[in-house]
């Protein structure tokens, strides 16, 4: 599509005959969006626009203390060990990556001198290597310079299996080599269109070689600096009490002009989301709180108080109901939901279609998520260029009933549908969590009207998401007919999120249920498209492939999207936080300030 014209336009932008804005507008006119346009320019050799950061303070410091309230306190301060977002946030105050994702899903250089592009020679045309340049003159908090050796060390540290680093996923398939003191080259085994994973974002934070070199591998836990971070970040470490408190003071040698604004930072942990919202919005004791998993109604009521407000950041997190394609009630070779079986009810496409029609997304949004959710028919909801426009959803008990009638599920005497003497009964499981239980109830109600008997089950989160091979209640075992949870998108690229439903990754007893394809859905077209997309360098073709993948999932009703979830924080009225839906709350901490 438009191929020739597009390439000539890219040329125009490169030569300065057309400005970037005009280019983006042209593309928008044909249905493509700004981030995509930017990506096209990047790959076409035009440097990516730096994020439009409106940072007003004109001098460093002077902003007083910044008080953050996390209702789960960080428990460790080594980014390579950060199990949850709370730990990544704690580490991010002191440590920095080469680049972070900004509010619009663009890369914002932090320790990097510039974002690699074809034009500056950072990206290779075959997408098999990336060259990153460090900003010169950046110092660790203890005064030592940051060099390429530190970057190479972080790769070695994370990939050493004895270190037991959580960040290994971002570093495993690459080789990092030093080019000169401030330059590294990342080599990929295969062409990798999404190159911004290692050294970028939460798991990209860099720890100093001179303090951790002795503690690589088996001794990683003993490093004294695991608890006393020495990083490059806007704030220097003062105090840490796991699960309770982190304190930092301004870094007077910070490498960005006029930053940071605050003189000190405090992150208090513990408690619950509702009272955290109170402490920001109602009493104003704190400046910012993360992850406001609070019913919208409550937030709206609190906001009438006036000392604070809620803020929203759109990313790609999706809350969905997955359909089991295998039979959870038949055991084959010591394994239920085995690939050798077919689900007796749900393997019929029309039943799945009916089920999708029984999920009343509007009611779920109205009653539960409010401003923190958007209804959607898609599994893949961002970045914009990957969002399919070909899908739609509707809620209709009548149409669902008609579909079920069509395939022989007739309403019995007790109002429950039956076929060949078998009742239409489904087990619906999820993890214990207020909004999820309420969603379950809404779905169950609609299903009952349509003559489906639905049994609800909820499993405590630490079990549901555990990798315990012996436990039948994990989401990966999927010993239920349908299940609901959320999969976040940690970066503005669909590769990792979509890869998991490839047939190769089906969860089975053989792979100890480590396969990520828990619905056990197999589709050859999908597999081929994913394989092609992973190595496709042309961003347009690549986006097209992922949109197709999304559409296949929609057609097959593998996933019934419940809500496109939006990140919610609470901030005091004067605070100007920079929060991206594509990153953690503190990933752009250096740009936070207070409006006088």
């Amino acid at each position: 599509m438009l191929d020739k014209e597009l390439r000539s336009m890219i040329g125009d932008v490169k030569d300065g005959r057309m400005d970037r804005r005009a280019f983006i507008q042209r593309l928008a006119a044909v249905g493509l969006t700004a981030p995509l346009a930017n990506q096209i320019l990047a790959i076409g050799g035009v440097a990516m626009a730096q994020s439009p950061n409106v940072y007003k303070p004109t001098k460093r410091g002077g902003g007083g203390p910044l008080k953050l309230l996390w209702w789960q306190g960080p428990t460790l301060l080594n980014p390579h060990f950060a199990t949850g977002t709370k730990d990544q946030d704690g580490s991010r105050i002191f440590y920095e990556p080469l680049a972070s994702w900004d509010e619009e899903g663009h890369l914002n250089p932090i320790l990097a001198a510039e974002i690699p592009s074809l034009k500056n020679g950072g990206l290779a045309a075959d997408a098999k290597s990336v060259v990153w340049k460090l900003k010169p003159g950046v110092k660790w908090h203890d005064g030592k310079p940051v060099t390429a050796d530190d970057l190479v060390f972080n790769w070695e540290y994370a990939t050493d299996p004895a270190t037991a680093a959580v960040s290994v996923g971002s570093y495993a398939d690459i080789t990092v080599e030093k080019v000169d003191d401030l330059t590294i080259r990342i080599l990929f085994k295969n062409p990798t269109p999404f190159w911004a994973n290692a050294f970028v974002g939460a798991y990209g934070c860099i720890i100093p070689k001179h303090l951790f070199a002795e503690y690589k591998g088996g001794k990683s836990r003993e490093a004294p600096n695991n608890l006393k971070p020495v990083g490059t970040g806007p704030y220097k470490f003062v105090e840490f009490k796991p699960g309770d408190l982190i304190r930092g003071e301004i870094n007077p040698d910070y490498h960005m002009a006029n930053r940071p604004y605050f003189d000190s930072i405090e992150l208090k942990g513990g408690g619950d989301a509702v009272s955290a919202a109170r402490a920001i919005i109602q009493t104003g004791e704190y400046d910012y709180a993360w992850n406001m998993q609070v019913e919208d109604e409550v937030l709206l009521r609190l906001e009438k108080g006036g000392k604070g407000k809620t803020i929203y950041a759109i990313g790609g997190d999706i809350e969905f109901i997955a359909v089991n394609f295998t039979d959870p009630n038949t055991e084959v070779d010591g394994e239920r939901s085995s690939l050798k079986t077919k689900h007796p009810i749900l393997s019929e496409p029309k039943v799945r279609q009916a089920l999708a029609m029984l999920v009343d997304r509007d009611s779920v949004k109205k009653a539960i998520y409010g401003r923190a959710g958007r209804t959607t028919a898609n599994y893949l909801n961002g970045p914009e260029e990957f969002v399919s426009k070909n899908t739609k959803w509707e809620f209709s008990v009548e149409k669902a009933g008609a579909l079920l009638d069509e395939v022989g599920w007739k309403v019995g005497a007790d109002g429950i549908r039956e076929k060949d003497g078998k009742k239409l009964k489904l087990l619906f499981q999820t993890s214990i969590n207020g909004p999820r239980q309420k969603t379950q109830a809404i779905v169950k109600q609609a299903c009952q009207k349509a003559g489906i008997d639905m049994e609800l089950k909820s499993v405590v989160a630490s079990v549901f998401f555990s990798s315990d091979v012996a436990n039948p209640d994990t989401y990966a075992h999927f010993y239920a007919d349908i299940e609901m949870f959320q999969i976040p998108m940690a970066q503005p690229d669909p590769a990792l999120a979509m890869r998991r439903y490839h047939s190769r990754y089906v969860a089975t007893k053989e792979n100890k249920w480590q396969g990520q394809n828990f619905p056990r859905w197999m589709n050859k077209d999908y597999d081929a498209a994913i394989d092609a997309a992973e190595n496709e360098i042309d961003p347009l073709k690549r986006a097209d492939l992922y949109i197709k993948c999304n559409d296949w999932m929609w057609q097959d009703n593998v996933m019934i999207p419940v809500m496109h979830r939006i990140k919610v924080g609470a901030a005091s009225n004067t605070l100007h936080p920079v929060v991206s839906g594509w990153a953690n709350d503190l990933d752009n901490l250096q740009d936070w300030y207070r409006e006088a």
Partner: protein
Amino acid sequence: MSQYILRRLMIAIPSLLGISLVLFVVLALAPGDPFSELATNPNVPPEVQQALRAKFGLDDPIYLRYLSWLSAMARGDWGFSFVSRMNVDTLILQRLPATLYVVGSSQLLALLIAIPVGVYAATRPYSIFDQVANTFAFIGFSLPTFFTGILFILIFSVKLDWLPFVYTTDIKATGIHWVIEQVRQAIMPVMVLGLFQAASMTRFVRSAMLDVIRLDYVTTARAKGLGQRIVIIKHVMRNAMIPVVTLVALQMPAVFGGAIVTEQIFRIPGIGSLLISSILANDTPVIMSVTFVFACLVVLFNLIADVLYGWLDPRISFR
């Protein structure tokens, strides 16, 4: 006496071993693992979660895990937290001051209210004072702390804006201001816990006093012409305090163990909140240490209570 204490301590060893075994097995059988947050993160391949389980020994057989825990514990090594990868003893010591301060003061407050009120109510049973005290006691122990805690926050923090409801361990002020802030932030949690305790303890003191006050020797003391004060304080209270001492001694481990609900509501970084967050995260080494230390304290304070009996009532002998 010292022989008695020694014997009791020797008996404590097998019972502590038994307790530790039961705790360990129950925790090991509990499902789940501390790495569940990794499961949905697309950046983390599932092998990582599996490798962490293996590395931290979660896939080993239970008896091996127990033996290695026991031998480490005997060497004074409490192990490390799976969640923070930090030594458990440092983690616990960090949390202890807040718990001692808040829960300790609340116990003190409870005693300061319960003993005078209970004693006075018992000397004038069914008087107006007694009725009022009883009514308040009933209300007090019928209201759970999670309710009074939130009520207090709504009244004193949100509506009146007098007191902070987020407990901070690093108060910026120095000198007298530091003390004032420290007291200010503890008022609500101490009240919530203290009043709850005081309510049930008042009832207890009152009935213990009433039991003793009717005995013949009290009448004898009165017949000798001793004043009401002397009779009550020297003759009645000393004997009535024996059951109260047991109650207080058995409450003492709780001073170290923290108050799970109240600590969570007011964000007090104490042992209770450590325990609950560890339980939610399946951080077995921490849960194991906290509960085991708690068990040791219960055993120890039982012994102390028994020794105190002898001091209060010389007729009780140690054999």
